[in-house]
């Protein structure tokens, strides 16, 4: 017993010592003497743990689920029930087509705020799909993906300010090709190299781009640009601008899924997978490694730029905030959570990571407004949910580490990547 638990106890003790000052003490600058003192702040630490309590609850639930699954094996029993086994092929490949009219009809019965939220989800899905091509399929890490997103958005904003007529449907395809070109130029010097050079070059690109647009006069600096209404999604044929935005995003998303899935199952996709599995071996059987990597990277940059145009046309306002590092990490977390190398997984990850914090933010008011819920949920818990949006990034970090340790292939990861990413 003691030998089994000792490493865990030592680890927890070590972490408790390392986090002790930051959690239990508070800095107090002393301005008269220009020195620094600390005060004892146990309340601070308790509040921190209290705010994390929903997470502990979630962890407990997951642990209980895993334990009961090991004990009773319900997940295998569920998968083997005829209803799921027989229809598995149906909802694996073609469900997207069945979902299409359903999703599109959503535009006509959702509220304006709902449409806005789901258009945002669609944009993040597009970004996750694009990033999945490089990170999931080809195995190249890109850390500055939001740079291309910002590039598309700013290309649109600047062009519509310069020309009198420059609507979104003109900007979208143009941004697609220009973004691809930028990706190609950026990838050219660093994709010839092995290793993670692409990660740092794209990260540097995104940072430099953000600093550039934040300091130039023509991009409005930190204040950003307000787009002309003629260029953005506006009402057309009896539909509101929000509805148009939703329908366009959904159609672009379907197109992207279709194209990416066709590519994934074509010789190009196989070449990408081969490069991900083993670059040297792929090169030795004649895969044009550099060209294939460049194609994957430019394609994903192009998709991000097109998504940037959609965002600009939807929001009507663009600021340097669109291409922060957090944005890049968020999209990366979506791809990893959903499943590396799986387009549907990337979309699932995007939906989860965008919608869960949104709904968590709404949760306290929902609880307050409903008499039944406010009777059930204890007040300290609803208070904790209120702070949960502040804790979003902390949780992102935890989720990324835990996913890599216990489920490196992601929620819907392809089976091929699972064997490869597990420690051999």
């Amino acid at each position, binding site marked *: 017993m003691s030998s089994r638990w000792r490493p865990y106890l030592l680890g927890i003790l070590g972490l408790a010592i390392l986090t002790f000052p930051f959690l239990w003490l508070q800095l107090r600058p002393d301005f008269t003497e*220009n*020195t620094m003192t600390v005060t004892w702040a146990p309340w601070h630490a308790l509040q921190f743990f209290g705010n994390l309590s929903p997470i502990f609850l979630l962890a407990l639930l997951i642990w209980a689920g895993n334990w009961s699954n090991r004990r009773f094996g319900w997940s295998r029993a569920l998968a083997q029930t005829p209803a799921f086994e027989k229809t598995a092929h149906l909802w694996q490949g073609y469900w997207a087509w069945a979902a299409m009219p359903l999703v599109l009809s959503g535009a006509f019965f959702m509220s304006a705020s709902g449409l806005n939220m789901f258009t945002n989800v669609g944009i993040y899905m597009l970004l996750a799909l694009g990033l999945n091509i490089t990170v999931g399929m080809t195995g190249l890490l890109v850390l500055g993906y939001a740079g291309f997103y910002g590039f598309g958005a700013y290309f649109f904003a600047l062009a519509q300010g310069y020309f009198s007529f420059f609507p979104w449907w003109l900007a979208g395809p143009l941004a697609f090709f220009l973004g691809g070109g930028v990706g190609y130029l950026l990838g050219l010097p660093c994709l010839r190299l092995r290793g993670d050079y692409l990660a740092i070059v794209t990260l540097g690109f995104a940072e430099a781009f953000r*600093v550039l647009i934040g300091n130039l006069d023509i991009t409005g600096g930190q204040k950003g640009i307000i787009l002309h209404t003629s260029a953005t999604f506006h009402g057309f044929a009896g539909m509101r601008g929000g509805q148009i935005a939703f329908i366009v995003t959904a159609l672009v998303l379907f197109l992207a899924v279709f194209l990416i899935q066709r590519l994934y199952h074509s010789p190009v996709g196989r070449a990408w997978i081969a490069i991900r599995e083993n670059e040297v071996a792929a090169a030795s059987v004649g895969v044009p490694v550099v060209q294939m990597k460049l194609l994957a990277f430019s394609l994903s940059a192009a998709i991000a730029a097109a998504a940037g145009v959609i965002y600009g046309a939807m929001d009507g306002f663009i600021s340097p905030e669109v291409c922060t590092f957090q944005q890049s990490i968020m999209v990366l977390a979506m791809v990893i959570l959903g499943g590396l190398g799986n387009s549907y997984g990337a979309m699932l990850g995007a939906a989860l990571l965008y919608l869960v914090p949104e709904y968590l933010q709404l949760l306290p008011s929902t609880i307050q407004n409903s008499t039944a819920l406010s009777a059930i949920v204890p007040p300290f818990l609803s208070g904790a949910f209120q702070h949960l949006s502040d804790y979003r990034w902390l949780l992102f970090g935890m989720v990324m580490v835990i996913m890599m340790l216990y489920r490196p292939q992601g929620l819907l990861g392809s089976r091929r990547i699972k064997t490869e990413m597990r420690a051999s």
Partner: protein
Amino acid sequence: MSSGSTLTEILINGVSRGAVYALVALGYTMVYGVLGMINFAHGEVFMIGMFACVYAIGIFSVAWGNHVLLNLGLGLLVAMIFSAGYGYANERIAYRRLRKAHALAPLTSAIGISTFLQYFIFLTVSKQNVGFPRYYSDMLTSNHIHLGGVDITYLQIAILGLTIVIMTGLFYLIHFTRFGIALRATAQDQLMASLVGIPVDRIIAFTFILGSALAAIAGVMVSMYDNVLVFDAGYRVGLKAFTAAILGGIGNIPGAVLGAMILGLTEALTTLGFGSEWNDVSTFAVLMLVLLLRPRGLLGERVADKV
């Protein structure tokens, strides 16, 4: 003041900033040299060092009053110990179990650790900038010696002196001690190293600890130099230091120092010519230029690919 001495001052600023980047870049390059992986949480370990030092100073000033040299020296020591602890925890949590997994896995978990640490400090310590206690840093920042027409502060001398001492020590450690031999053997081939009795796990852990302690020194120096402690400082400096490591050829220790110096000087000259807000742009331009001309970095050598 003549423009010539302004230029010299800018250059001295650049060299001392470069020295700080070099201390952080060493952590990146050593871990890469041994594991072949980027340690993305290294910048956050640097940031932890900054805050640990200020906390330690606060505790000591409550415990036995404001003794500048004693508290500052002990604060630096505490910062090194804390950063080393966080570096070790990072290795144990994010790297050890994923060492044989796909290259993206440890990288992703390290990004997770980095995000977690940033927002841990953001939520528990301070959302705003914290100033370094001036009572302690004033002695170093406001006193200066006059050398050849320019003023060099004690802090700049301390940064340069410490960096030179540490580089020399590191060179000795890696080339002339048993540990250094074991480290180089581990870097070449982990399996073979373990077969001849080298404790590979411990060597790798010690590499993380060493790099983290150096980052803590850099953290304390930067927080005194800029008088700003903030939760995302590690990200900014880490990005620069990592760029420096790539400039010099990642995995190569003298290369990291050279790259850091080039970067520091580039920044200083950019500040002089265009203003400090353009620093990131010029850094990126230098990085792209070097990658175009010398893809493996300035001092990086071509290594054969292994299947």
